[in-house]
């Protein structure tokens, strides 16, 4: 039996083939092959900005997985990141529960906190903080005023039965799997001791819940898979799949429907899995996952700490960063969910969402008295797409000036997925001050480009960044730099552009742009930096993404349905 046959038996191929609502009708045992991968998909999904609602949109045919070409990555055992911890507590214990800040930093690795989560631990400071959070939160759960939300209220300090019910109930949700009897007993005992010592039945609830929260089973995702002889891989269990899907697509713990689905074994069955994934993607909470993914990829979290000199930038105030992030995320949400658009439109659309703060920076009338509103930038204003937004322009810049290098680096790394080497640690990085001979940034960084040591790397960044020089350090338009005319012409890997407006399309057409999104989506969702054994997964997803007309919604769906998401490395002896 070939590995492919084994996989088909295990439903892997079936799952992949049954990837879409349409394809679900196809025979699950379709002959393997790659030629038809997404072949007729592009017809269905032209980049029509006015396409129908998601539910009516034709979903392209599935990518076909060649199991011989890849091995799923081993389980990363992620640690919850800050947002996931807070979201989970609110969703499980109640939106009104006040959660003290979790100070343990997220670890960023390969651009993503979801990848860093597989390296992150909890420091002694973090443990202290987690204990504080646990009692603060458990105290609210055990507040007599909220008693009607508990599955039961203990009526005596020795009410072991009710404590067992509570430990089972909250344990299942906080640990994302049913508790072993020994674990339940352990925390029931903790609760009974506390109730007796403090002579308060509800103190038992508080200490038992606090114990569940302090356990590594809460803060670490214990997703390890079980040996699956059929595939030769480890398969994530139903409970583990509920957790993986939920954190990836919603950035929080599983909801009640997922818990029921896991209990019913519906998340390891490829056909039922698909229905659950569709429900999750259609749910509002899916916006959270997509926002989180692009916030990490495009560094939008850093906009909270934007550091700019307000004496130089009249339109800067510390909340500008927050507005800028919201602009980018709203456009992304709109493209991914409402329009199901060609996601490359992110680079070239003149549609955007601004509040009055951003409207002032862009020099356009504010479309709304307060809050955000959709607007269309006039085509003659030289600004469009992500690289015309304050988020990109201000992030990839200095506190007092623009930066050709930082902007070029962002484009190379985050939009094209190319590696930019770190500067040699002993590099002399000084550039000359502006002078009458060399007034513009282009003149000044010419030094980098003349020095051979510098040029090797700076030639891949600076010429791109110089194309954005019509935008200052916070993204406001300017015609001159130190009084001199700005030259924004350049080329991106041989494709010439005259200015930033023009370059937006150059980046859109760059062969790296589409595959980059596919690769980053896989990386974000899997929580693992893709290695040699996963290149085939990335290639397949890239081809699929292209064939769908660059539909991120379909891409994300394909990723979480793929065997690369459902299996955890080879069986270990």
């Amino acid at each position, binding site marked *: 039996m070939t590995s492919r046959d084994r996989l088909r038996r295990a439903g892997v191929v079936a799952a992949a083939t049954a990837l879409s609502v349409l394809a679900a009708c196809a025979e699950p045992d379709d002959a393997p092959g790659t030629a038809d991968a997404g072949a007729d998909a592009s017809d269905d999904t032209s980049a029509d900005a006015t396409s129908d609602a998601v539910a009516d949109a034709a979903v392209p045919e599935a990518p076909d997985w060649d199991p011989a070409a890849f091995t799923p990555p081993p389980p990363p055992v992620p640690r919850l990141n800050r947002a996931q911890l807070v979201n989970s507590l609110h969703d499980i214990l109640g939106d009104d529960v006040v959660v003290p800040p979790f100070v343990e930093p997220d670890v960023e690795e390969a651009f993503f906190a979801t990848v860093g989560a597989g390296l992150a631990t909890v420091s002694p400071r973090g443990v202290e903080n987690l204990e504080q959070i646990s009692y603060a939160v458990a105290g609210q759960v055990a507040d007599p005023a909220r008693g009607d939300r508990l599955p039961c209220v203990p009526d005596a300090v020795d009410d072991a039965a009710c404590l067992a019910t509570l430990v089972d109930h909250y344990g299942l949700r906080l640990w994302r799997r049913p508790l072993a009897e020994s674990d339940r007993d*352990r925390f029931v005992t903790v609760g009974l001791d*506390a109730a007796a010592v403090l002579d308060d039945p509800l103190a038992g609830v508080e200490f038992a819940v606090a114990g569940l929260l302090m356990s590594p089973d809460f803060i670490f995702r214990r997703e390890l898979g079980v040996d699956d002889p059929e595939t030769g891989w480890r398969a994530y269990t139903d409970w583990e799949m509920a957790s993986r899907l939920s954190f990836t697509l919603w950035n929080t713990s599983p909801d009640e429907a997922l818990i029921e689905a896991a209990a019913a074994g519906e998340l390891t069955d490829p056909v039922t899995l698909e229905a659950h994934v569709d429900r999750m993607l259609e749910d509002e909470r899916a916006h959270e996952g997509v926002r989180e993914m692009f916030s990490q990829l495009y560094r939008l979290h850093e906009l909270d700490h934007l*550091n700019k000199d307000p*004496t130089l930038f009249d339109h800067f105030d510390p909340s500008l960063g927050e507005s800028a992030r919201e602009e980018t995320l709203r456009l992304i949400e709109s493209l991914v969910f409402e329009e199901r658009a060609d996601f490359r439109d992110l680079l070239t659309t003149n549609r955007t969402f601004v509040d009055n703060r951003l409207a002032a920076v862009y020099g356009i009338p504010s479309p709304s008295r307060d809050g955000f509103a959709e607007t269309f930038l006039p085509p003659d204003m030289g600004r469009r797409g992500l690289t015309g937004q304050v988020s990109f322009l201000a992030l990839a810049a200095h506190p007092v000036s623009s930066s050709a290098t930082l902007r070029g680096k962002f484009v190379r790394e985050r939009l094209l997925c190319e590696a930019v080497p770190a500067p040699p640690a002993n590099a002399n990085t000084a550039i000359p001050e502006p002078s009458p001979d060399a007034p513009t940034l282009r003149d000044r960084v010419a030094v980098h480009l003349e020095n051979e040591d510098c040029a090797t790397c700076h030639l891949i960044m600076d010429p791109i960044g110089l194309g954005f020089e019509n935008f200052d350090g916070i993204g406001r338009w300017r015609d001159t730099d130190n009084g001199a005319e700005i030259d924004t012409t350049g080329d991106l890997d041989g494709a010439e552009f005259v200015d930033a407006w023009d370059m937006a399309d150059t980046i859109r057409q760059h062969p790296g742009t589409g595959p980059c999104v596919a690769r980053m989506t896989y990386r974000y969702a899997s929580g693992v930096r893709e290695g040699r054994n996963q290149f085939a997964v990335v290639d397949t997803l890239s081809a699929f993404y292209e064939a769908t007309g660059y539909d991120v919604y379909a891409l994300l769906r394909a990723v979480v349905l793929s065997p690369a998401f459902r299996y955890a490395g080879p069986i270990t002896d």
Partner: protein
Amino acid sequence: MYLLRHRVSRRRFLRGILGGTAVTVGLPIFGAHLNFNGTALADGSSFPSRFGLFFWGNGVVPQRWIPEGTGTDWIPSDQLEPIAHLRDHFSVVSGLEVKVPNIIPHNSGAGGLLTGMPVVARGGEAYTFAGPSIDQFIAAEIGGDTRFRSIEFGAEPGGGRSYNGPDNRNPPESSPLALFDRLFGEGFREPGDTSEPDPRLALRRSVLDAVVEQANDFRRELGSEDQLRLDQHLQGVRDLEVRVARLQEDPPELAACMSPDQPLDAYPPIEGRPQIREKNRAMCDVIALAMACDQTRVFSNWIVEPVSNNLIGEAEAGHHQLTHDEPGDQPQVNEIVRTLVGEFGYLLETLRSVPEGDGTLLDHCAVLGTSDVSYGRNHSLDEFPIIVAGTANGRLRTGLHVRSEIRDTTNKVMLSLIRSMGILAADFGADDGFTEDGMTEIEV
């Protein structure tokens, strides 16, 4: 992989890694040697030795840093002038080098200096430290007796560089009020408070016990790398249990112990310029009294981060940007360094203002003042800026400028500092930086 050659600590870590059972990684292992009253020092002092780190990002301008003259006869340089009045209380060591491959700007230096070992490079600028930073190295030995094993803070919000081990970094507190609340808020008892301990404390300890025991099943399912991650977490849980136990004891009788004034709620930037100095001073006031009350014996102050780009003082551009772009002998960078060194001076003054026995708190401390690079402009690691303040209960010499003419390893100073805490360390560092000798010129 841990490469610690420090005999004592290696055993500690090996227990964690190879012991096969999480429960043997307990702390405090050495607390018993150095408990409060038992610090049997040669000079008869009964005050414990404390360790502090004052760390600023982006280095110095070396030609404006190195003092003229050596021994006791030296003239403070431009950048040391802000602390010249404290010269009897510190020694400057110049000419040393962080002997690690300088592959990741700023962090090769920070990691190499603080751990003695090259950082673990992960491609591009990604990295983690290869082992504990010196503050945690020392805290592991002397931190177990107090309510807090160590305290990390910094005026600029950021990650700091206090590592317990790879990928396990202690997040510094950047809000003076939060630092105050943590040290002097709930749980803190003034000397003389002999009220019955809160019965919840004993319950909290039993919950922590249950958590450690319950984690054993989880631990067994993990591969060795993930076991190490879980062990680090469980180590923190055990630490916490020890610290909760401290709260059940009567507070020590310490004459200088009192609660500091409560800091302001917030220190918002003024005209885009963060209030680094004001925040630093508020936090230094809190940490000095925290040590006077023996709440902790180890602290690290990460006033500004490596690659920090704050607008400081009257500077016309961000700190990091200036270190690279400012031509000549960098007058603006010089002013920023002088500001930061001045804040180091504020810390030393504050420690000196706390009377302890016949001396001051500063006399019972060793405080290392240093940075992540030497010359920020080119990230150099030779001619590294190092100040050692306080005598650590008479174990360190102050008032000196010691100069290495042979680019000795910075690890010599690290080893002297570790030994000044009464820790029997055989050696420190790895590879080119490995040393069995301290910086004997600053040792008593």
